[in-house]
């Protein structure tokens, strides 16, 4: 059995005002995981634990088969990490940074670096301090992508980017995925970006992993039903229903376990399902988080 690209097992980290609580999830090699959560949910804390920058209080973490933090150096040879708050050296040029990274990684692909310079409209001789936020993120991605890592760990890489820059970055990541060997962990609170590129989704909220599954499983199971009820009809209790909003004779039911027989079950109870809608990832995310908060009494 090949090692996972990354694996969290019951990882906890306690701070005075935040706790990452018993987090477990796993990303298989060759897969792209969208790591989605609101601001302050624990995405960055999890990624910093993964990169060996923070030590967890409990649990175990593996990165490309290497236990973290003890073997982080071995793992990092094949991992490219970019986060939106990561900075390059302002006084140096992009060319100097490329030379610096190239001197470390024998896998540096100079041809691909040149291609990325053109695609991202970056200039090698430009000083880093004169780059915009979007250009800085693209420069960081160039430095990471040109060394051909097996795993990319991207912490909010599209945060603060204009739509064109976001499109360029996502297009490059999609391109990279043509090579089925590479894996990506992509953290964001922007579900549109995540929906575009991910195979798997992990939702995190208030330090807890809310759900982790294939994207298609989420999109298939989470559905919204519009149901027409007669005045004296009560909705039957159905497993998987996470929210019901009723306005007069119309009820909108959100379920996290949609099955084709669901309309039949409601019909037997005297309710007519008028419409079944697939939910967007954003709607699923919000519904999932709110349901879990309610279940925990928060």
């Amino acid at each position, binding site marked *: 059995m090949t090692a996972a690209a990354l694996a969290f097992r019951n990882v906890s980290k306690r701070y005075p005002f935040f706790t990452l609580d018993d987090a477990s999830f796993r990303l298989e090699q060759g897969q792209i995981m969208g790591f989605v959560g609101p601001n302050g949910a624990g995405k960055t804390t999890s990624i*910093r634990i993964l*990169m*060996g*920058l*923070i*030590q967890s209080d409990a649990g175990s973490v593996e990165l490309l088969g290497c236990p973290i*933090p003890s073997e*982080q*150096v*071995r793992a*990092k*040879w094949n*991992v*490219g*990490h*970019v*986060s939106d*708050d*990561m*900075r*390059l*050296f*302002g*006084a*140096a040029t992009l060319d*100097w940074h490329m030379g*610096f*990274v190239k*001197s*470390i990684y024998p896998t540096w692909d100079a041809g691909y670096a040149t291609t990325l310079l053109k695609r991202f409209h970056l200039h090698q001789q430009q000083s880093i301090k004169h780059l915009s936020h979007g250009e800085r993120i693209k420069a*960081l991605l160039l430095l*990471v992508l040109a060394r051909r890592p097996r795993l990319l760990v991207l912490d909010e890489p599209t945060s603060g980017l204009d739509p064109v820059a976001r499109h360029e970055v996502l297009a490059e990541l999609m391109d990279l995925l043509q090579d089925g060997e590479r894996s990506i962990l992509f953290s964001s609170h922007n579900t549109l970006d995540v929906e575009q590129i991910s195979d798997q989704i992990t939702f995190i909220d208030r330090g807890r992993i809310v759900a982790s599954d294939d994207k298609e499983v989420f999109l298939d199971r989470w559905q919204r039903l519009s149901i027409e009820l007669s005045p004296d009809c009560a909705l039957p209790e159905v497993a998987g229903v996470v929210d019901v909003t009723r306005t007069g004779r119309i009820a909108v039911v959100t379920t996290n376990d949609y099955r084709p027989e669901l309309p039949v079950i409601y019909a037997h109870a005297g309710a007519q399902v008028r419409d079944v809608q697939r939910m967007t990832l954003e709607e699923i995310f919000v519904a999932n988080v709110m349901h879990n908060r309610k279940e925990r009494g928060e």
Partner: protein
Amino acid sequence: MNRSISGRLIAKDLYLYRWLIIAAVLIGTAALPLMRLGPGDGVRSGVNLGMILFITNVIVLGIFIVMYGVLKERQDKTSLFILSLPVSPMQYTTAKVGAALLAFLAPWLLLTGGTIALILLSDTAPDGGIPSFAAMMTFFLCNFCVLLALVLVTTSEQWAIAGILITNFSVPVFLSIVLNLPDISAFRRAEAAVWSPTVLAIIAISLAIAALSLTLAYYVQSRRKDFI
């Protein structure tokens, strides 16, 4: 392979400090002829612009290396970029300390050696000033190491400023009290350098404090759970 990465990190820092190192050497060298090293002046003259410039240059070099190279790298999150490379936080710390020490020691050695050579070659400057000058320079090295250790451990601007204030305040205290101890001042105008037990003790204590502060910083870093 990791040793070579540490070497590259040190080379990277020295490249980024290069203008600072060059400026410190140039300003220090320019200050040498301005120093009044004639009889009766030694290194303790009241108004000695050359000496003031020389001392300020060494102190500012240390402050810049610590603030720009260590603290700013943390605050700007460029350390996050370096730590994304195949290095552990302790290797990063080692490279940071190594680069900071090299960046400080290179001009420090040049200026200390240059000044001592100037005194030895001068017909008018008494060689007796050499031990107290060496003690002063070792004290500056000690101050630099204490400040470096403090910033490594705290990574806080407030602590760095407090450290700068304390180490800077200690300079006039050192110059006016320690260098005027009878066992030191009595030999300053002597024809030959006299390495009294007091001056040797001051040098030894300064070096011990420097080593201890860096060792403590390493110890605290090794026990740290969060590096960012």
